[in-house]
Each structure stands twice: as structure tokens, then as C-alpha cells.
């Protein structure tokens, strides 16, 4: 993979440590080993001056973007002016980056073909991370609804003397009849039980 005659120096600024490591791994696998990852923008001016990065990758959720952009434009600090992306005519890349929530700043004079793979990698890693985060959320809410359903089953078993399987079947049937999620029915049941018999909770 190491086809870059002189690898570009890359700085990744991301407050999200997990996402930053996902990007880092991707870039290292692609042969970019002059790579620095920063989670905190405190003292960033000094780091940039030391590192003199060719490319800076930053997540769009960072509230310090206005500060960073201003710094990039002040050549006093960064020596070489840094522009956003490499070629503004590459509208598709720019859109893909903004959609993914990532932005890249590049020192003037770099050729697009040298930078594009880095940006593409960052975009795909950002998207992969978002997908992962979404899936994690789904798992979390799945677990959460399972807990709620278990509590509702327990209430039905105690108050109506049902077996666990019958309690589950009743919840399921009610949900189907009302065209709602089982977890919603379970939540309503828990709320109602709490109101009717506060000592239960």
C-alpha cells in the first residue's frame, strides 16, 4: 500500500476518541504514518506550528471550527496558508464530506490527487462510525425495551396470575391489535400499574 513517495503529514482533530481512532487506523492502514491525532484544541496553535501538517481533518461538530479556521488563515501561526479542501470544483467530494460531518484543510499548492485519497478515507470512516453509532443506539434501545417488557410481564404475572409465556403472549397480542410496539404497551402498563398501586413500585 505504501505508494506515497513522501507521505503527507496529517493532523486529525476530533473530540470523539473512538471516531478518531477509527480514522487513524484507516489512514495508517493506507500507509499514512505521519499522523497525529488531537482530541483537545487547547494549545492547538503551538501543535500546528510544530507539526506543520499538510492536511488537517476535523469533525464538523467541533464548536471551535471558527477559531481553527481563523488560525489557518493567519499565516503568522501556520506559516503556509491552509485552504479548505483542495479543489473547490470537486463539488461531489465537498458534499460527501459535509454529509459525513467531516472537513479537510489543506496547505496551498498540494495536488488534488495526493489529497483526495485522504479525504475519501476520512469520509468513509466517518460514515462507518455514524453507522456504528446508530447500530449501538439501536442495540441500547433494544436492551431498554427488553427490560421494560420483562417488568410488564412481571406485573401481569403477579396481578393476573398468568404464566410468563401467557403474560408475554398477552402483551404481544395487545400490541398487534393496537398496532403499537410491545415496549410501548409495556410502558403504558407499568405507568398504569404505578398509578393504581403505588406500593408496587
Amino acid at each position, binding site marked *: 500500500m505504501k505508494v506515497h513517495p513522501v507521505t503527507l503529514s496529517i493532523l486529525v482533530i476530533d473530540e470523539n476518541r473512538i471516531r478518531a481512532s477509527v480514522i487513524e487506523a484507516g489512514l495508517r492502514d493506507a500507509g499514512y504514518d505521519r499522523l497525529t491525532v488531537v482530541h483537545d484544541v487547547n494549545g492547538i496553535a503551538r501543535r500546528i506550528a510544530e507539526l506543520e501538517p499538510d492536511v488537517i481533518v476535523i469533525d*464538523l461538530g*467541533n*464548536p*471551535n471550527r*471558527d477559531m481553527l479556521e481563523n488560525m489557518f488563515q493567519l499565516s503568522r501561526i501556520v506559516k503556509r496558508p491552509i485552504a479548505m479542501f483542495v479543489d473547490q470544483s470537486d463539488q461531489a467530494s*465537498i*458534499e460527501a464530506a*459535509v*454529509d459525513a460531518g467531516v472537513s479537510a484543510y489543506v496547505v496551498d499548492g498540494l495536488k488534488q490527487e495526493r489529497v483526495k485519497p485522504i479525504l475519501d478515507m476520512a469520509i468513509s470512516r466517518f460514515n462507518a462510525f455514524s453507522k456504528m453509532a446508530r447500530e449501538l443506539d439501536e442495540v441500547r434501545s433494544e436492551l431498554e425495551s427488553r427490560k421494560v417488557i420483562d417488568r410488564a410481564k412481571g406485573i401481569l404475572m403477579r396481578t393476573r396470575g398468568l404464566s410468563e409465556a401467557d403474560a408475554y403472549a398477552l402483551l404481544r397480542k395487545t400490541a398487534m391489535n393496537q398496532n403499537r410496539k410491545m415496549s410501548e404497551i409495556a410502558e403504558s402498563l407499568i405507568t398504569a400499574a404505578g398509578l393504581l398501586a403505588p406500593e408496587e413500585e
Partner: protein
Amino acid sequence: MAEAYRITAGFMPLLDSALLVAANEKGFAQAEGIDLQLVRETSWANIRDRLAVGHFQVAHLLAPMPIACNLGLTPLATPTIAPMALGLGGNAVTVSNTLWDAMSAEGAKPDLDPSQSGRALQAVVATRAAQSKPPLRFAVVHPHSGHNYELRYWLAACGIDPARDVEIVIVPPPLMPDALAAGTIDGLCVGEPWNTACALLGHGHIATVKAAIWRSSPEKVLGASAHWAEENPEALAGLLRAICRAAVWCGSSDHHRELAEILAGPAYLGWPAEWLMPALSGQLHVNAQASFSVEHFFIPFAKAATFPWKSHALWFYSQMVRWDQVAHTPGNVAIARETYRPDLYRAALKPLGIALPVANAKVEGALHTATPVGSAGPSLTLGPDGFFDGSLFDPDEIDSYIARQQRDR
């Protein structure tokens, strides 16, 4: 309403997003057949990028930002117009308690007077320089912001060179109170609720206000993608009418409490309503103990507060030149002038029967008191609109204005 236009607008969680928020929450957008989607953002750069790629058709923008975009001063600069302003005033300069104590010893009074507090600050700056102490550090939110230009104007008019005698850095508004408390910065110029937050948290003292440095001055505008505006004139006109009605609603003191509660909601600012009331009522907390009443601190509607004056655009341009952000050329003057679009404003609002200024530009600083002016429709009162140092900005004399400011450096 027959057909709904869907318009997505980006906004920053600041008090002057009020007009957009009220247009949505109080049904003014809906009444114009507009499905207005408001998307909260974390930086001005994000708003600019998302305007550029078409996620947003319009946005809450710092008034100089569309000019900077059209002049190519920012990355992803896409043609942007300002067909409406989103109110006048609303900013203040807050200093740390330590700096305020030093300024008080030099004669600053808690009456928000820019001349007196500026003289006191100049004395503090001179003393620090004589003692070889590091320069004071002030924060603003963006290089192309009213905050940056009014802070620099105030400092320069008080004998402080903003480029040499102090350091000016960029800090996102929500991080300002902590930065001031930690001593990372000595002062800041920011919109509300952040001055009030600094004061109420006991981190600082409000030294002066935008409404005193340059009276009746613009702060945010509605920025629109020039391309989208051209393709969708009815949608834009409907939105301008909705925001205008929202501005009238926001301007009534009967609605201030309700407005503060709406803005305090988690989808909008997510900060306590108590932080938002002072800017609306003009009863500012200058520090944790004392308050001071400021007439016209933030004006949503009165005094043609939503009119996009070309003289405002040209003043911002003159300050971009003054602080070396752009070269002064006739072409650049024309770009700045054409960014603000009073023609679109007038055409859209004519059916509302409100007072519309007949001129596109005015001499800033010419009105020393509230003055009835020529208008189409009902009578219109403008001003006072002066700079605190008494100087005038005549947009027809921009060359000599710029030359004078360069010479004075």
C-alpha cells in the same frame, strides 16, 4: 394556503435567532404556506458549508458574513445575499472582574458609557505596557462579525490599537464564560445571552454595549443562497413576510416572557429564560449584583430594524479594509453593496402595509435623535444612529472614510 414551500434554515443558539424561531413557533411561516425547518448548528463555518452544499436554503448569519462570502474571504464561499436584517443591537463588551477593578480605578462607571469605559481601558492598557505586562486578550466569535468590528472600532476610537496593544482571539460563545473565569481571556464582545451569563455567573462585568458604540446598528441578517433565491422568489418573499410578522411579535413587550420561554426550550437555545429576559427588556445585569437599563438594547422591529441597509453593508466592508481582511477596490465596493438586497425586501413586504424606507442607504451617524423619515406607507421613525465618537459614515464618501481610517492608524 395552496402549496407548502419547504425551507430549511440553519441557526446558531443565540438570542437573535428569535425572529426565525418566532416565525416558526407562532405560526407566521405556516400562514405563508412555508414549512420552515430550523436546524441548530455549532459553528458559523458549519452554517456556511451547509448553505454551500444546499442543506440550507437560508440561515441566521453574522451581518458581515455574506459580504465576506461574496468577496471570497472564506472557504466554500458561495454567492449569498442578505434580503433582510434580523434586528438591531444585542451585543455587549464584558470584561473580567480583575480588569473591571483596574478600569474602575481609572474612572470607568457602571453606566455602560463607551467613552468613559474606553478611556479607562486605554489607561489600563498603557500602564500594563509601561510595566511590560503581556497585552490584554479579548475574544470575539468570528473574524467577519459585528463583534470583531465594533470591538476594534471602540478600542481604536479610544486610542488603543487593536492590532498591537491588545490581542484579539476567536472563541465560540458557549465557551466564553469559562474562558473569562479561567483568565484565558480578559474581555469579550459577544451577543446575548453570553454577556448576561458572564455577569450572572459572577465571571465578569459588562463594560459597554453595541447599542451605545454604534446606535441602531445591525447584528445578524437572513442570508440566502443567491442561486436558491433566484429560483424561488415566491418562497423567499413569503419567508420575509413571515419573519417580518415575527419581528413585530418579538418587539412587543407583552410577548417577551413567552419569547424567552420558547427560546429557552431544548430545541432552540437550551439556556434559562432568566438569561434571555435582560436583552429583551433592556434591563441588563452588568454584574451579579447590579443592573442598568439600556434603551433599545436589542430592537427586533422598530426603526426599520429588519431593513437591509446598503450603508450597513458598506460600513462592514470599510472595516474589512481597515483591518487588512480585503483590498479596497471599486469592484469589491460593488460586491459589498450588491450583497444586501433592499429591493427584494421592499417587494416582499409591500403587501403588509408596514413602513418601508424609500432610500437604500443612509448616512450613518446623521440622526442624533429619533427622527421621522421619508417612507412608503405608514410613518417611519429612525435613529438615533450615531457612532459614539461622533464620526459620520457617508456611504457615498467611502474612499475618504477608508483613507482617513488608514491614516489614523
